[in-house]
């Protein structure tokens, strides 16, 4: 079985440019989560969807970050006007229940110059 697939694995952008990260959850999983990983902040929750509907975006920086889940096999995280402080590994995870057992992808490492 394929795990959670994230693309691209590495992305380098210039300050002010846009970055879009993609996530394909495990087939049959009903929930998709986005986390940001840094050494200083650890794993920060950003947002999640259940059955494609946005449920909680309390961790999303409001002005430049947005996430969508247009179908059950695909979610995107878009960062507009990227800033150096956005540099991090962005992790997507999916789950089939609400117990909290998440299956993570290997992450997309974003570097903003």
């Amino acid at each position: 079985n394929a795990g959670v697939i994230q693309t691209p694995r590495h992305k380098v952008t210039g300050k002010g440019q846009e970055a879009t990260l993609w996530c394909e959850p495990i087939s049959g999983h009903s929930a998709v989560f986005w986390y940001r990983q840094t050494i200083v902040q650890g794993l920060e929750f950003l947002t999640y969807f259940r059955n494609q509907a946005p449920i909680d975006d309390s961790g999303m920086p409001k002005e430049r970050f947005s996430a969508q889940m247009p179908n059950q096999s695909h979610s995107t995280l878009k960062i507009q006007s990227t800033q150096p402080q956005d540099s991090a590994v962005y992790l997507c995870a999916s789950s089939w229940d609400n117990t909290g057992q998440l299956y993570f992808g290997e992450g997309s490492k974003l570097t903003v110059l």
Partner: protein
Amino acid sequence: GDSVTQTEGLVTVTEGLPVKLNCTYQTTYLTIAFFWYVQYLNEAPQVLLKSSTDNKRTEHQGFHATLHKSSSSFHLQKSSAQLSDSALYYCALGTGNTGKLIFGLGTTLQVQP
């Protein structure tokens, strides 16, 4: 708000000796679940242990942890550390049956020969 605290950023132990990684939490939820996730170098985080039962020991791959609601703790222990245990360990709190997890900052475990 809900929070998870991992007091050590780095724990170094000699192979064959016991190891303990600390985790405490704060939450107002009555229904909680706890997890330890492990992330090996260049890999995705994966579940190591999980528990939602107070005072019940949970074991997996030689590691064990017991949820103690009286002291708000879920420490991870192993009696004999192996070189292959070197990794980043996250403690995580799940609340309210949402599936969303709140992670600590993580503890890097280095096992030396």
